[in-house]
């Protein structure tokens, strides 16, 4: 941004034309494909509109679609929405905590200068690029399966009876798979942070006789906190919208026990055919994401200004 400002001052001869021609095609394309549909989603959320009932006219419904999900009649029977909201928070939050802690420890480990360290780093990064539907079916078939998978075979050889993890612990299965896929991303970002720590700082740490534990958690971790927040922010955005992995492993089940918000939107439109309710749910999902991201982003900006 500063470079742009310098450029303006540096070229007084070139005052005739603005360069919107370079930007506007991209802006218009992106607006039509993302912003306009989102506005339509918000409009739909105020309509009574069921795709399976074309005989009923589309009418304005006010906040009825929102009330359907949010309205609490008795505290004993909370609407399903609240358990779906909790499941979304639980899956996303637990995954992010596991990714932050595990990602940091592994990044510290991979920050060592050993022969062929790049091979180890590359192997660890692999799962991040695996499409979620493939990782879902692969884990489900070759690992979690009670008869043919590694889990089943190892449990039986140890004398235990393997249980069907996908049905009995659906949330844990989803969290393990999300963590497996996203921890490499955290390692990538945090490792970049660790390698950006100036060498003389590490040298003076050694001279001062700082012990290993203090060095890692007292000095290095605070120094890469901005990287940590960026990883958490982007991780949050991508994990909260994940859909394919849930579809292929638990399909939201048993019942609705592993539904997340995007999965519930999908079910509202393709199973219940209810455009209005799906719109309300989608709008709330987006608002929730933006609020959470905004909170983390603010903490990054605040921290950066503190350090300047």
């Amino acid at each position, binding site marked *: *941004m500063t*470079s*742009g*400002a310098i450029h*303006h001052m*540096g070229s007084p*001869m*070139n005052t005739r*034309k*603005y*360069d919107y021609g370079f*930007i506007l*095609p*991209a*802006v218009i*394309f*992106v607006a*039509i*494909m993302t912003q306009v*549909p*989102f506005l*339509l989603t918000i409009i739909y959320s105020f309509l009574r509109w069921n795709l399976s009932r074309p005989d009923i006219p589309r009418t304005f419904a006010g906040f009825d679609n929102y009330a359907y999900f949010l309205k609490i009649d008795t505290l004993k029977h909370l609407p399903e929405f609240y358990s779906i909201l909790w499941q979304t928070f639980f899956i996303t939050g637990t995954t992010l905590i596991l990714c932050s802690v595990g990602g940091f420890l592994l990044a510290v480990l*991979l920050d060592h200068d*050993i*022969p062929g360290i790049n*091979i*180890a780093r*590359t*192997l*660890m*990064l*692999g*799962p991040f*690029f*695996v*499409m*979620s*539907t*493939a990782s*879902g*079916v692969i884990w*489900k*078939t*070759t*690992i979690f399966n009670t008869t043919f*998978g590694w889990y089943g*075979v190892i449990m039986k050889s140890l004398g235990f009876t393997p249980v069907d993890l996908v049905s009995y612990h659906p949330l844990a299965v989803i969290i393990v798979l999300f963590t497996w896929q996203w921890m490499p991303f955290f390692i990538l970002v945090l490792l970049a942070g660790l390698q950006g720590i100036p060498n003389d700082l590490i040298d003076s740490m050694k001279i001062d006789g700082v012990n290993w534990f203090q060095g890692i958690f007292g000095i290095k971790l605070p120094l890469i906190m901005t*990287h940590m927040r*960026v990883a958490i922010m982007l991780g949050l955005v991508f994990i*909260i*919208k994940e859909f*394919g992995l849930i579809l*292929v*492993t638990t399909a939201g089940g048993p019942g609705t026990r592993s539904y997340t918000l995007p999965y519930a939107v999908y079910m509202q*439109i393709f199973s219940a055919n209810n455009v209005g309710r799906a719109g309300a749910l*989608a709008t709330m*999902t*987006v608002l929730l994401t*933006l609020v959470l991201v905004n909170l983390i982003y603010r903490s*990054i900006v605040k921290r950066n200004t503190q350090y300047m």
Partner: protein
Amino acid sequence: MQDNYIQRKKRGMRVRRLVGKLILTLIIYTIALFYFSPILYMFLSGFKTEQQAVMPSFFFKPTLATYKKVLGDPTMYQYLRNSLLQVLVGTGASLLFGVPAAFALVFGKLKKKDSAGKFYLWFITTILLPPVAVLIPLFTLYQKLQLINTPFGVMLAYIGFHIPIVVWMVYSFFSDLPIEIFEAAGLDGCTKVQQMVKIAIPLARTGIISAGLLVAVFIWNEFFLGFNLTGNPTATLPVYMSRFREQQGMFVAQLSASSTIAVLPAIILGWMSQKALVKGLTGGAVKG
């Protein structure tokens, strides 16, 4: 005596340090290999027959029969072709729209000083928008416009969602270029288009290529929109993979071979693009 003692002690320390490093190396490799093992096992199981694949094992007599069977299946080709079409056109168009925008945001002249910053922030915000926000209107409108289940319909959505990623990544690569070159070129009568095509793009080409690779990986792996906006003849590989979900442990070898074909290109492209990923993240977001 004294010298000997010190030498011995030094050697002892060196040996201890070497042993420590060896143990550390072993630990790191064991963890890395363990972490990667589901992918490795998938890759290996593709070389098994179905009978061999029933019992999990890492050691077996490899065969190409399963790969031959999978690659001989015309439906697999169809999914592969659909995915390639989306990736090639989608990535190309995202770069075509995104690179000039990033160029003008860094070096262009806009009405107000802070306009570039505002546009940049707007693109970033778009990255945060989850696809559920757009699925419903795209689904209903595509039905009316006869775009549902066509390759073109989902492609438009992919381009719209990946232009902001190109802008975000390429912006940080362009910001590294010295502004003086462009000033000099401007004084020499070089137009903005020439400055971009002849100077900026060649200088930032590794960054642009890596950003393109990353977008290619994202489109290759995209499932939510692909699953809901395409039909059987136009579906992509992630949709194909999702069809294996009901098999309950059957056809492990076939599943492994198919997913290797679906997963390996993305892993390789991803490994090649990791520099852009780090740079885009740390350059764009960490420095604010």
